């Protein structure tokens, strides 16, 4: 682009302010490609949901939720795996919430700045990346066999608790970190001990974030089949009806779905399985909605 005289140059410059056609095309193409990539992932989700709803909703009715399993697809119900999942979640929450929040409190408020603390943090980050099936193996080795709890609700709950513990710890630490330092200073300056300040001021302020994180972690646990399978869930026909007996065999929704999908009969594999998935997704939706409501209701007022 030679610029010979100032007048000619400015004339040419003005005319050249419009993007040249070739470049316009490339830019638009790039934009389009990236948009397609983004929409592909989301479109996949839409197709997935449509497919599942189409297969599952027709089969879904109240009986499905309150009947036990059966050899006949039309009479099959998910009650025992629903109650099993419920009991699992209660146990998982009872263990992982206090331990996870406790670990987060220690790391965020009380741990000294030394090598051991850094080791703990690295360790938790690594545990977050361990495949869920390995947690099942851990529970199998330690709880099922070594400690003799057998393939029970307790072993399954331990597998899931250990799996989601890093998630709860990280989320709780974030919530604690968000509490301003001035609150801690104010409390300490009044002659409160560090624990009193943490327990009476900091933790209550962080609680909404902690609860949200825990509920999200639990919603992840609900859908995990691999660790529960390995630690001993059985397919529902053999499960008892009252799975809050921790030593007994139990069933769980994702494991039930896995079993259904593997059956050769089309009715089981497609319709009943899809119906079970709808129930599972419904439970997930409920939990996430609770978490979002919590987050909005208690969003930061300081």
């Amino acid at each position, binding site marked *: 682009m030679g610029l010979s005289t100032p007048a000619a140059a400015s004339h040419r410059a003005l005319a050249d302010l419009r993007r040249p056609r070739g470049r316009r095309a490339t830019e638009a193409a790039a934009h389009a490609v990236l948009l397609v990539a983004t929409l592909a992932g989301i479109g996949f989700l839409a197709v997935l949901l449509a497919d599942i709803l189409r297969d599952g909703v027709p089969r879904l009715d109240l009986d499905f939720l309150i009947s036990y399993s059966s050899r006949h697809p039309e009479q099959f119900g998910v009650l025992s795996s629903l109650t099993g999942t419920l009991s699992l979640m209660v146990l998982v929450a009872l263990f992982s919430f206090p331990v996870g929040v406790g670990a987060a409190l220690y790391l965020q408020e009380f741990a000294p700045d030394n090598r051991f603390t850094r080791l703990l943090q690295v360790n938790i980050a690594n545990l977050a990346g361990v495949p869920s099936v390995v947690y099942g193996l851990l529970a199998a080795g330690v709880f099922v066999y070594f400690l003799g709890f057998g393939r029970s609700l307790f072993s399954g709950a331990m597998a899931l608790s250990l799996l989601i513990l890093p998630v709860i710890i990280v989320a709780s630490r974030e919530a604690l970190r968000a509490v301003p330092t001035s609150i801690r200073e*104010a409390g300490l300056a*009044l002659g409160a001990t560090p624990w009193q300040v943490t327990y009476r001021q900091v933790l209550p302020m962080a609680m909404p974030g902690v609860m949200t994180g825990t509920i999200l972690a639990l919603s992840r646990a609900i859908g995990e089949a691999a660790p529960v399978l390995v630690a001993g869930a059985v397919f529902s026909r053999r499960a008892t009806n009252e799975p809050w007996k921790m030593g007994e065999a139990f069933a769980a929704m994702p494991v039930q779905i896995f079993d259904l999908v593997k059956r050769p009969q089309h009715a089981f594999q497609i319709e009943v399985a899809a119906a079970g998935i709808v129930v599972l997704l419904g439970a997930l939706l409920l939990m996430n909605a609770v978490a979002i409501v919590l987050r909005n209701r208690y969003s930061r007022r*300081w």
Partner: protein
Amino acid sequence: MHPTTESPQMIDDREAAGDITDAIFALEDVTIRYGSAVAVREVSLEIPRHEITAIIGPSGCGKSTLLRSLNRMNDLVPSARVDGRVRYDGHDLYGEGVDPVEVRRRIGMVFQKPNPFPKSIYDNITFGPRVQGIRTGLDDLVEGSLRAAALWDDVKDKLQQSALALSGGQQQRLCIARCIAVSPDVILMDEPCSALDPIATLKIENLMRDLRERYTIVVVTHNMQQAARVSDRTAFVTLDVDEEHGRRAGVLVEYDTTARVFTQASDARTEGYITGRFG
């Protein structure tokens, strides 16, 4: 301290001359470091009971650090170290077996930016007494503290409302009331008015003068006029720069009654700061 064989007349004479007869704090060659960097070097002074002592000086010269060493708030910084002696009522604040929590129950602090808890006004005030195990008489305690902080009339009908709904000046007075509720001997104030408007500032300065009767007040301020208005005694701290070794630390340049510091300063640096030539 001083022998009690002095006659009242001798004490009056010395007070007239500006000597300290009843010191609550005694600092001897106090040097405060963060890691290897010296923040404040070899400060020695005595702070008298039931008076308002101001610490003035340009920003960044260690005034807050010095103040925080008086109630062991520097402990919150892991790399902080205090050498020399800080005596409170004759006891070494940094001695063996001294509990920082006990220290802070006697020496309270009000911060630059008001920091009420996100709770009700009532709960803010009762937090201090509660953590010390006081469970009864809280209502009276709340009223007494709010009256002493000149806030009672403003909030007496809305004690259960959130403290965060108060204006900045009211929040700061709430923080003062909160501090008073644990019955300290000393109230340390770290630039308490710098985040407030002039009217709120005036109210707090009046409050400080009232509080002097029951408490000892040490206030850090970068507002010289405030120091001149409010304090009995003034300490001027500034940066001493050692170009050769590239070191800078805060040092106490002058410490005397406020009247003398502001009218007959003995050090040229004090005079320079007060007349606005630097800082």
